[in-house]
């Protein structure tokens, strides 16, 4: 039983090049990704960033958990595209390209839907790659070097460290309840599973805070770290090159009015119509499957 596999938002141990990259360099890239993603409406740049982040996964040996983590994009992406195609979140006039029943299908709605989705996909993938390849303690040490407030830094590191602990706890609790004949899924499983998880989480946090205070947490003075993180020349090069690319592209993009290609890329009406049908059907399917599981005993 691997809850690690069910909720893959934690460090996947490894010895790849990406695992060895300095956490500060990774933070530079994640921040750069987010800044650039929200500074441009150029879908080539957005999906290029997403593709690049995805290609890092096999290099780091985290493809499978990354894909599992990225599953959340299915309902988000399908609903976003379906809604944008029929009601674009940009100023009118919109360009109708087809109609379906009472719905008018807009080509520029698809473009802006793809922009919004591209921002989410690119940011999520790079953030997942970073979390899956960075030891929380290394992140803590690196952020401390960046003068991040100690308490805030500790909270972030602790949250990341507790994720696998809670994943394991969820696994044990599910086993305990299944042993009592509880159905493994469905609405009936929610209460027996989540009450012990939440109570356990609260108790654990209470104990942790007492334990921290009893060991002088919050006291003044310089803090040291057991784990040391080295900065190699390659880390500097990767960080500087990344920062230069992201800053450069962001500036160009802003100067070009967010570099939108909405008026350059014209999607055929049939293509937009079919994409709308597929997106709407996928989202409806997700909702139906969720409801079936929710009410199945």
């Amino acid at each position: 039983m691997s809850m690690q596999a069910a909720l893959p938002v934690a460090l996947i141990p490894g010895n790849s090049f990406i695992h060895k990259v300095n956490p500060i360099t990774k933070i530079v890239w994640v921040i750069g990704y987010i800044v650039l993603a929200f500074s441009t409406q150029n879908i080539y740049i957005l999906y290029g960033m997403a593709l690049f982040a995805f290609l890092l996964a096999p290099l780091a040996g985290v493809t499978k958990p990354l894909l599992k983590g990225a599953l959340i994009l299915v309902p988000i992406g399908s609903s976003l595209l379906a809604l944008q195609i029929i009601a674009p979140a940009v100023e009118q006039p919109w360009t109708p390209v087809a109609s379906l029943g009472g719905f008018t299908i807009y080509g520029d709605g698809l473009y802006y839907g793809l922009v919004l989705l591209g921002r989410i996909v690119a940011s999520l993938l790079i953030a997942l790659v970073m979390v899956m390849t960075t030891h929380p303690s290394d992140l803590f040490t690196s952020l401390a070097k960046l003068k991040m407030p100690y308490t805030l830094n500790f909270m972030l590191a602790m949250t990341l460290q507790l994720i696998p602990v809670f994943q394991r706890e969820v696994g044990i609790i599910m086993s305990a309840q299944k042993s009592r004949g509880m159905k493994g899924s469905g609405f009936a499983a929610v209460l027996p599973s989540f009450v012990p998880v939440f109570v356990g989480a609260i108790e654990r946090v209470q104990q942790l805070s007492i334990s921290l205070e009893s060991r002088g947490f919050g006291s003044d003075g310089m803090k040291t770290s057991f784990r040391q993180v080295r900065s190699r020349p390659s880390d500097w090069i990767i960080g500087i090159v990344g920062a230069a690319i992201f800053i450069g592209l962001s500036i160009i993009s802003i100067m070009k009015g967010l570099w939108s290609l909405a008026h350059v890329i014209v999607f055929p009406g049939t293509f937009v119509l079919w994409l709308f049908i597929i997106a709407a059907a996928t989202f409806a399917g997700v909702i139906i499957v969720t409801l079936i599981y929710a009410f199945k005993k």
Partner: protein
Amino acid sequence: MTSTDSTVERGARAIDVSDAHYVYPTGHVVALGGVDLHVEHGEILGIIGQNGSGKTTLTKLFNGLLKPTSGTVVVNGVDTSGHTVQQMAAHVGYVFQNPNHQLFARSVEAELEFGPRNIGVPEEEIKERVADAIEFFGLADVAEEHPYRVSFPIRKLVGIASIVTMRPSILIFDEPSTGQDHHTTKIINDLMRRLREQGTTVVCVSHDMPLLADVVERVVVMKDTMIIADASPREVFADKALMARTNLQAPQSTEIALKTVVPRGGPIALTPHELADDISARLAGKATAPQQTVR
């Protein structure tokens, strides 16, 4: 409390484990390396061994929480590999070490009703089973309380009672006495005796040697994912080399007996009562060994 209710295939052993291996999904950790274990109905079995020796993994095979990566596990004639944990729950009750992992209901009484209801016990019988358990475990004063509002030892009893009300024919205890006070340990001890009288098969994983010495009839010793000894508690606890090899410690009564009365021809005591009986007899000038059970 009445005897167990789950259907048992005629002629089948309670537990039949044949050449069971278990490797965790990551592929790096071998938790069981070829285990054979056969348990008859009504046996009270203790499993001991160091942490990481495979005790808990082995018991999780019994109710299908884990399926062997090779080999077979047949419980009451049912091969666990083709059945879900929920299906096996009618045969095998599993008391987890930490009661907090299973308690969720609004009251102790509701908690005790949860298991039997899941396996389809009629409402009238659920009421009768819950009343029985409340009386046996002394939970009358807290029956309406929320399980998280009672003390940890009582919570532990609630956790055990919530499995006992399912009346499985096989009951597994994982460290039942860890962190418990004397009162709770005594109730657990009494429960095991009661289960033995009723013919329930009990498997108890524990580091509490005095508890095992007091109640079990057979001890299985595990080391490095394998069973390395399977004998009566008297034989196992008296085997100094085995105890040393597995970093285990026999009950104090046994150790005292081995150093004092055994070299003088006395019996191997398992419990303080047996040791006290022998010492009393010797002080009274009687050379006869005290009465011992077959264990």
